[in-house]
């Protein structure tokens, strides 16, 4: 039994799945439905879908594709990408997803998180924060998939999302995204130590040991993985896969009681 959830985080661009590097270079991975079928067979813990263009360009949510996904997937599902209202969330839940991921729209409407949490429970709302380091040190939160710089500091915003009712946080290091260089331990630790709710670390996972490291050293409750589950190896072609459960278990057992 895995004590920590390892969640493939899949990026939608129109009807395709893509993978990014540092939120850029949209590399085509494949058809989302075929991909989720494979993850379904691999019996992954949970799947997360982020429509990065819905978010970046404030496009409408593609409910049709979410329906197709939910028809194939028998595991917990979450969706993020320009969720603007409680009604949007209601539609997503009715389709068969159980969590919504809110990032950009929380900056001008923090109440959105509160409304969804009140209606569906806190466990149904994931607050998402994308963080990028500056050239001369320092860091900033970015919304709209890396497009818009926000003013709030990471810890301050994490606490605000928590008190608004988010049941979990997705914490993404833009600098690590797609780099296979491991999670940002310091950043993750800073957030896990300032909120009570579970934190999903994201950005940089390249191996089982990266997962064990962010859990053991930074107290992440869950890990999102991207490149390592859609590519064969670093710099190689597309291959949808999931780390061997026994090896994962072993690595995690060594860091979690």
């Amino acid at each position, binding site marked *: *039994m*895995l004590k920590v959830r390892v969640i493939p985080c899949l990026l939608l661009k129109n009807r395709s799945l893509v993978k990014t590097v540092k939120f850029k270079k949209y590399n085509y991975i494949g058809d989302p439905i075929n991909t989720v079928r494979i993850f379904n067979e691999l019996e992954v813990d949970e799947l997360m879908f982020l429509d990065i263009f819905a978010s970046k360009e404030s496009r409408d949510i593609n409910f049709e594709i979410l329906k197709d996904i939910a028809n194939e997937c*028998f595991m*917990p599902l979450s969706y993020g990408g320009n969720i603007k209202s409680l009604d949007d969330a209601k539609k997503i839940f009715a*389709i*068969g997803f*159980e969590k919504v991921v809110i990032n950009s729209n929380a900056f001008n409407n923090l109440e959105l998180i509160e409304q969804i949490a009140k209606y569906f429970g806190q466990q149904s709302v994931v607050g998402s924060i994308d963080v990028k380091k500056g050239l001369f040190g320092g860091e900033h939160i970015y919304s709209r998939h890396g497009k818009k710089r926000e003013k709030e500091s990471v810890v301050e915003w994490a606490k605000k999302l928590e008190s608004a009712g988010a049941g979990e946080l997705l914490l993404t290091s833009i600098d690590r995204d797609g780099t296979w260089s491991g999670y940002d331990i310091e950043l993750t630790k800073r957030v896990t130590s300032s909120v009570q709710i579970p934190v999903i670390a994201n950005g940089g996972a390249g191996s089982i040991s990266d997962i064990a490291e962010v859990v053991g050293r930074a107290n992440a409750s869950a890990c999102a993985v991207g490149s390592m589950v859609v590519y064969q190896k670093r710099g190689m072609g597309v291959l949808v896969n999931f780390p061997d459960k026994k090896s994962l278990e072993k690595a995690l057992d060594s860091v979690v009681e």
Partner: protein
Amino acid sequence: MITIVDYGMGNLGSIKNMFKYLGVESTIQSDVDKIKRASKILLPGVGSFDTAMQKINRGDLREVLDEKALKEQVPILGICLGMQLLTKNSEEGEFDGLGWIDAKSISFKDRVDSQLKIPHMGWNIVRKNQKSKLTEGFELFDESRFYFVHSYFVRVEDEKNSILKTEYGVEFDSAIQKDNIFGVQFHPEKSHKFGMKLFENFARI
């Protein structure tokens, strides 16, 4: 045909999706007259205990469900909050539950180590406690695991009504049964082949 009762609480789409995948006919129904004719009932539920009981008590739904469960004795399966509603009451609310099974719904809070995150959210394993048609064939898996999301759990008064047990800081009843009435704390519709097996079993009862 399985009638999934829609009383405004929860994620019904994914339950129907799984039955469809299994080739089992199901229908989502809010019309009490149609629920009255159901031969097998699924009672879902996500949300708070009192809100759910208020919705059930409103109109004729309560009476119809009581009739179905106790008099006609059609198979009924409660999922997640739907399981907790089968009990007498819950620490989460003031309202009485359906009370079909002698059990109570109680809080994890103050009963488990404060380090443990509540809700209990994620995959966990189940252990067989009593034989049941609902869990037939589970021994074919080396471990049966299911997806849970809940802050309250069920404790039965009579061990013979507890068919599966799970541990999260405390051991609790993750599946219960009394005659034709079944309840599961986890989400079979989100639990891969394990959930499919359970739904198939229910469809066959």
